């Protein structure tokens, strides 16, 4: 590890994303504004007009067009970044699948916000969870500092495995709150990300190609199978890139999951993003009165690190999985269902239940965090409880 005094900056989550983009200096940024992610591209557009980056900034008429422009630019070999949130991501939905299947390493700075209806601009994870099967790598960051570093890592990850990556921060809670970000020097960023080596380029006149032609029954399945394999292989790449980053720059960012006081835990909570910060404190409070409770923060949701979850939970008796969105399927949220499925192979499976919380930015106070821990304790002690509990909603 290199010991180096890092530049400390006071940045909001959006500023942290924008600053990372400035240091990355992408070839093309095509974006459309949406609360609470607007600032990312607004700040970046200022960098462009002030001549601080060499980026071609494409102001488009919708998010569908934003992602389409990103796809075109990326297919020509450019390094491309965009930012969006909520309805914007939903409007991109069709194009998200095209970006991933064409194996274009686009990076998306995403700010988590609830989906309409009813209209709501505040945080939950229903937007990116709705895109969970779009073939994008998804990294849910806890705070502005992690968001900043993840966006830089995302460029390397995306361009190594040729898959698009979205890095997310919780809307308002992180996107608009100021925190300390320990930044890299621009030179360090540029060296770490290197130059993109595209799989192909539509602008290479020496090697003419046809991109995205009709595939039908005879080749579609083969192309999908390749994409599935790329997502599997991305696990090794994500690990390599984040570990190299940590070693080079002296950080200790978790790769797929972060474990907190799990060593001798009898029961555990799984949380994502900013709620994990609150939960760490709740764990400390309960630990201080002798409770053997721990926390696992799930950071990478796509690809899904089921092997690690099976391993980390194999000795606990009960787990509470927190979801900041609901699948509206009568059996809880997406995180819960996938975590639960990961445990199926265990010989003695822990008891498990789901806590859906914070929809539409509903506050997640300490008392709710402690309530969740205490419920999982009851579950561990054999009490029969509902499969899914909604925390923080008025009855």
């Amino acid at each position, binding site marked *: 590890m290199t010991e180096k005094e890092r530049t400390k900056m006071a940045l909001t989550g959006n500023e942290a994303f924008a600053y990372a983009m400035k240091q990355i200096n992408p070839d093309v940024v095509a974006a459309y504004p949406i609360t609470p992610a607007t600032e990312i591209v607004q700040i970046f557009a200022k960098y462009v007009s002030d001549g601080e980056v060499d980026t071609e900034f494409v102001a488009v008429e919708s998010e569908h067009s934003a992602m389409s422009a990103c796809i075109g630019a990326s297919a020509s070999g450019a390094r491309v970044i965009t930012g969006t949130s909520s309805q914007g991501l939903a409007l991109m939905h069709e194009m998200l699948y095209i970006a991933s299947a064409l194996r274009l390493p686009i990076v998306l700075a995403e700010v988590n916000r609830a989906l309409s209806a009813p209209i709501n601009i505040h945080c939950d994870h229903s937007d990116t969870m709705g895109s969970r099967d779009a073939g994008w790598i998804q990294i849910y960051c806890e705070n502005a500092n992690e968001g900043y570093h993840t966006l830089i890592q995302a460029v390397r990850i995306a361009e190594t495995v*040729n898959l698009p990556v979205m890095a997310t921060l919780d809307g308002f809670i992180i996107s608009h709150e100021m925190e300390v970000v320990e930044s890299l020097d621009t030179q360090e960023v540029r060296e770490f990300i290197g130059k993109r080596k595209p799989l*192909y380029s539509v602008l290479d006149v020496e090697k003419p*190609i*046809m*991109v995205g032609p009709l595939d039908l029954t005879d*080749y579609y399945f*083969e*192309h999908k199978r390749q994409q599935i394999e790329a997502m599997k292989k991305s696990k090794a790449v994500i690990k390599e890139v984040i570990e190299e980053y940590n070693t080079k720059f002296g950080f200790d960012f978790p790769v797929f999951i972060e474990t907190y006081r799990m060593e001798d835990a009898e029961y555990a909570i799984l949380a994502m993003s900013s709620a994990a910060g609150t939960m760490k404190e709740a764990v400390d409070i309960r630990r201080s009165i002798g409770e053997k409770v721990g926390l696992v923060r799930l950071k990478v949701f796509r690809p899904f690190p089921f092997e690690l979850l099976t391993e980390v939970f194999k000795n606990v008796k009960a787990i509470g999985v927190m979801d900041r969105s609901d699948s509206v399927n009568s059996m809880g949220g997406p995180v819960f269902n996938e975590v639960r499925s990961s445990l199926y192979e265990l010989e003695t499976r822990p008891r498990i239940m789901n806590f859906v919380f914070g929809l539409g930015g509903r506050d997640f106070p300490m008392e709710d965090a402690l309530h969740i821990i205490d419920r999982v304790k009851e579950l561990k002690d054999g009490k029969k409880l509902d499969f899914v509990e909604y925390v923080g909603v008025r009855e």
Partner: protein
Amino acid sequence: MKKKGWKELPEGCFIPGVPTSQDLKTGSWRTSKPVWDPNKCTSCFLCWVYCPDNAIILKDVGGDPKVSGINYDYCKGCGICADVCPPKVKAIHMEREEL
């Protein structure tokens, strides 16, 4: 032709090399076919301009291009050529394709 498995295909849903459209014989889609009459045709080239599949054949007659027939490998039978052929000429008519 043996179709390639997923491990053999280039990654990224693209086809290397051009022109790839030559390999796709769109003629197999045809349900009716244009029949061209060399005695009526004035070689005005309207059919050649409009044909979406470049299936009108031209040949060189003493240094001038003349329409000389239809390439049924690629003609998909859309009928545009018969439609645009001037009414006074009517050098192309459509016939049902025998299946």
